[in-house]
């Protein structure tokens, strides 16, 4: 395993553009997208873009242990996060390999690896939060097509995507978790409107998508009609903790930045590191970060051994999201007045870019992306504590 780690490091030394952070600091959306494509191609040519794909589909077919090594090294090298391709590289293949037809696989998987096809996900809906099962977007069968009407929200990078992994209701009479189907939807057609959600950070990482009599050929159904909920499970568990591993390793590295900034002068005299309150706050954040890393390492270890992981992914998501918020808040606090300036953003730099105002405002988008903490806490209560699923009347939106 050391050998693989060494080869990843060597490859990164040779291929990671040394000045990428300089180039992406305050870069335009177009420059960001261009660089994401460039980095995608570099990783692909190096054999690292699809480490988890089977070899027959052009992937590296790496063991999960080696995938862990790869993501650790990408984080430690401070490589850009390949945010634009996340759905394309994880959710789409996981779904198609488990439930798709061979035709669907052949049509899409090579196109993704070529870099031509970018995918997004159409799961969340307004006012339903993360309670996916209560979705209201309708898909009605008419002959050999489905007609889709409705609206999705919080779809990452949908404005750059060609295809959408869509969950829509095909049987409104069935119970909430039944009657949902899973589709491949071509976004480049009439009736599809994408509206970027302008975030407080100024960026627009998420989109709303509106469907007005949009057509889907029946061959684009994944799995059986009304079996979409089952199919979606494959999607949601596809990355098996690698994202959170990458994120915690990035935070561990960013922690050193935070410590360095603790040398700043406080407004009340002296440096933050000489202030007992701030010293302890730093140590506390560190302790939580290390606890998180231990949990992640523990979970990945179980995945490697093929054991089931129960509530751990949810525990880790709640832990991470609360820590990310407190971490960036501490950075903002120690940044003083200067941190109020909206400095240029490091595009593709992740959640702790050291531009603390941006990072703090951006931290909440993780909560949305990762499923709200309310929902996660419920999963924990059910799986880890054996608490009954709560009564519908009191169900919080997630």
């Amino acid at each position, binding site marked *: 395993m050391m050998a693989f780690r060494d080869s990843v490091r060597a490859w990164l030394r040779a291929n990671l553009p040394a000045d990428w952070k300089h180039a992406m600091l305050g870069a335009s959306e177009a420059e960001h997208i261009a660089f994401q494509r460039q980095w995608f191609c570099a990783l692909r040519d190096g054999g690292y873009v699809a480490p988890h794909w089977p070899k027959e589909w052009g992937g590296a077919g790496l063991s999960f242990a080696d995938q862990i090594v790869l993501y650790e090294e990408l984080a430690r090298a401070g490589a850009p996060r390949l945010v634009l391709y996340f759905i394309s590289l994880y959710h789409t293949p996981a779904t198609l390999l488990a439930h798709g037809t061979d035709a669907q696989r052949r049509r899409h998987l090579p196109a993704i690896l070529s870099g031509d096809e970018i995918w997004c996900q159409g799961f969340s809906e307004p006012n339903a939060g993360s309670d996916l099962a209560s979705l209201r977007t309708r898909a009605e069968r008419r002959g050999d097509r489905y007609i889709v009407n409705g609206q999705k929200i919080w779809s990452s990078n949908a404005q750059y995507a060609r295809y959408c992994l869509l969950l829509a209701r095909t049987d409104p009479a069935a119970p909430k978790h039944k009657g949902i189907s899973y589709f491949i939807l071509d976004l480049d057609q009439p009736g599809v409107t994408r509206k970027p959600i302008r975030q407080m950070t100024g960026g627009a990482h998420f989109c709303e998508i509106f469907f007005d009599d949009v057509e889907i050929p029946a061959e684009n159904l994944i799995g059986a009609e009304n079996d979409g909920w089952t199919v979606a499970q494959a999607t949601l568990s596809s990355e098996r903790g690698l994202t959170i591993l990458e994120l915690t390793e990035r935070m561990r590295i960013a922690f050193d930045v935070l410590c360095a900034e603790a040398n700043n002068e406080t*407004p009340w005299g002296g440096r933050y590191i000489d202030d007992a309150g701030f010293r302890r706050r730093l140590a506390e954040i560190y302790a939580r970060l290390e606890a998180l890393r231990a949990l992640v390492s523990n979970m990945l270890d179980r995945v490697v051994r093929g054991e089931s992981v129960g509530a751990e992914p949810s525990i880790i998501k709640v832990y991470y999201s609360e820590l990310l918020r407190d971490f960036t808040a501490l950075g903002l606090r120690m940044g003083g007045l200067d941190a*109020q300036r909206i400095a240029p953003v490091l595009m593709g730099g992740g959640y702790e870019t050291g531009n603390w105002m941006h990072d703090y405002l951006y931290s909440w988008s993780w909560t949305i992306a990762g499923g709200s903490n309310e929902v996660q806490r419920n999963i924990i209560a059910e799986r880890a504590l054996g608490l009954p699923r709560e009564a519908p009347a009191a169900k919080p939106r997630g």
Partner: protein
Amino acid sequence: MEFGWSQAQENYRERIRAALRELLPADWHETYTPQSYASDAQIEFSRKFCPQLAERGLLVRHWPKEWGGEGGDDWEQFILAEEMKVAGEPRGPQYMNVNWIGPTLMRFATPEQREKYLPGIARGTTIWCQGFSEPGAGTDLAALRTKAERIGDRYRINGSKIWTSYARKADMCFLLARTGAGRKEITVLLVPMATMGVSVTSNPGLCKDGHLNEVFFTDVDVAIDARLGEEGQGWAIVTHALSFERTGVPRYHVGIEVLGLAIAQLKAEGRADDPIVRARAGMIAAQFEAARALTYLVVDQRVKRAPENTDANVARITALDAVVELMNFLVEFTPDCLAGGDAQLEEYYRINVPAGVTAGTYELQLDLIAQRGLGLPRG
């Protein structure tokens, strides 16, 4: 302490409200920043609005009659502040004029300076900005480096100021500059922004149309009569000026309003019966109520000319706690509203991030309480 309003106070409040109904344009809430955050449009609007308020005798009613007021008490200033805050502060930057710049001039200015500046303030026609903060100096005023060098009967100013709200549009700057090497050798100068050598650069701020201004002074030359008070008296003047501000902005009104908007949203989504939502919202409401009670207490003490204490800091801490809790509530339960779903909630969030999280405000307030209020000596 009596919390009931007198009939005269109620009448006064109603007069203000009537003036607001009459004077604010129909598109006020859409076109102008609803929360008074120093947009150019809002500053310009204040040039139209404040004179109209002055005509109705409502701009500086708490000032002495000599300078155009009615000799009203601090409650009148406070009621005005509450109503203006709720309305989105249409006075723009001029709330500083009437709250502390005017009163400070009355106390420290020469007769000539008073004649020169107070009428413009009382009529609502002058925009002032506050030249206190500097790059790298944090909020420690004693560490400032902008220099005013005495050359004959003039001062030559060199240096720069940051976070100078309204500077792009201001007529005058209430400037703090160093006139000696000692820690407190600081002097106040009243500098017209149109003076040669004064320049302003702006960065976009966190709020819609808000700007973070930096003001540069390069060999700026002013006559000695631009000085307020004595040379080296700056520290005393600023301390006095800030004491007029000690009630702070009444944050609770807007906070309670914003909480109400978020709850209306959650009700509409059928999520208001979630016990976690209820528990959190209930405590936030309680915190704002406590902040309101404390603020009234502080104003009451001012009216009674009670010796200064740390109640104003306590009021601020309580309000800040409530604001931070409210922001966390918004992020957790109404994220859609913060991303285009509700302009007012989003703007509130943007404005309050700095208040709640940055700049050591919170620690400074606590340290002041520990030192002055609790009499805890430093080791």
